[in-house]
């Protein structure tokens, strides 16, 4: 058997170092792989348009989100998010810094964050609770950023007890930790969190993150460029 295979190797080597068929095979794989990647990359913005739906308008019920930016900004971005959702984390960590700097700080838009804790994320409500308690001391957004930045340390897969992580962030942010802890343990903002989630359900939010900009709903994360384009078109209206 060894002799046969040796013979085969030699035949291949003597005829040509690499047969043309080999290059065809590599070419086919490269073409297939590149087309699939290109398709996946291009599908996203197209889907963003396709999943648009008219969002129920009107005041945001008894829910109370967390505002960043000028209250009278011409375009209002509403975000329904789950602290444990990776898509939301991705938006918060990758896209949102740009959105804040270029759209919110410049007064073009403001953003209101609503909790939408999903049932499969067991630590998400605790994270909303931690952020709501930071809000009592005027540091919702700082806590929001800290929670999202370290999402994989305190999420359901990582721990059953996320409180020590949030406590650490509270300390780092310079909050009065005993006040924060009393608030956290009493879960006094649970009503607000539930109201925010109920508001999402009323608006037919079924995945996170979901953005409502103007009268359109976008049920997925988006890049800065996509959000900028939507804000620009909403400004023109």
């Amino acid at each position, binding site marked *: 058997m*060894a002799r046969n*295979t*040796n013979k*085969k*190797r030699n035949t*291949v*080597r003597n005829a040509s*170092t*690499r*047969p043309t*068929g*080999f290059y065809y*095979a*590599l070419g086919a*794989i*490269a073409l*297939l*792989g*590149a087309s*699939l*990647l290109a398709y*996946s*990359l291009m*599908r*996203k913005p197209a*889907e963003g348009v396709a999943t648009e739906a008219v969002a129920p308008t009107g005041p945001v019920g008894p829910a109370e989100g967390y505002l960043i930016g000028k209250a009278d900004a011409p375009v209002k971005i509403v975000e329904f998010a*789950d602290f*444990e*959702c*990776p*898509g*939301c*984390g*991705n*938006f918060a960590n*990758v896209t949102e810094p740009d959105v804040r700097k270029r759209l919110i700080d410049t007064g073009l838009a403001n953003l209101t964050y609503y909790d939408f804790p*999903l049932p*499969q*994320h067991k630590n998400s409500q605790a994270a909303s609770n931690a952020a709501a308690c930071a809000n009592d001391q005027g540091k919702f957004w700082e806590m929001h950023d800290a929670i999202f930045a370290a999402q*994989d*340390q305190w*999420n359901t*897969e*990582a721990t059953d007890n996320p409180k020590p992580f949030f406590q650490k962030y509270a300390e780092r942010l310079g909050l009065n930790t005993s006040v924060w802890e009393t608030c956290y343990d009493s879960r006094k903002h649970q009503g607000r969190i539930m109201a925010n989630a109920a508001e999402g359900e009323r608006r037919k939010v*079924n*995945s*996170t*993150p979901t953005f409502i900009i103007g009268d359109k709903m976008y*049920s*997925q*994360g988006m890049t800065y460029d996509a959000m900028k384009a939507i804000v620009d078109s909403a400004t023109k209206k």
Partner: protein
Amino acid sequence: MTKRMIVAALALAGVFIALYLLLYKLGMIGHLSCSVGSCETVNTSKWARFMGIPVAGWGLAFYAALFVLAMVSTGERYADSLGMSKLLVGAAGTGVLFSAWLTYLELFVIHAICEWCVISAIIVTVIFLASLADFREVSASPAS
């Protein structure tokens, strides 16, 4: 096609799978909306990073290096090189062990299976078997 060419072709396929998963990890592809998905669970768990770098990034580097190595090994100069065969077996073996560890995590720790990770595990296993066959062939060859 020789065994090494099979390794090269499969490694190239692996490059694309790892690239896809990496782009997904970086949020540039597909829905990261949290309506439950096993690939999402796996690729966003804390085990999706190894030494601070996304596992998909390691995969991409691994497959790319293996592809280059396999391409070089198909050249006339290294056709009978036993060292090259050993290198391929060693690299593919490392890949198989790493994949086995990841599959163990998926099954018993994360409790979710990501189909692309499974496809990658199968590819790396076939690569390993092919490089093992190549090693046996080259070591049995009188030229070596």
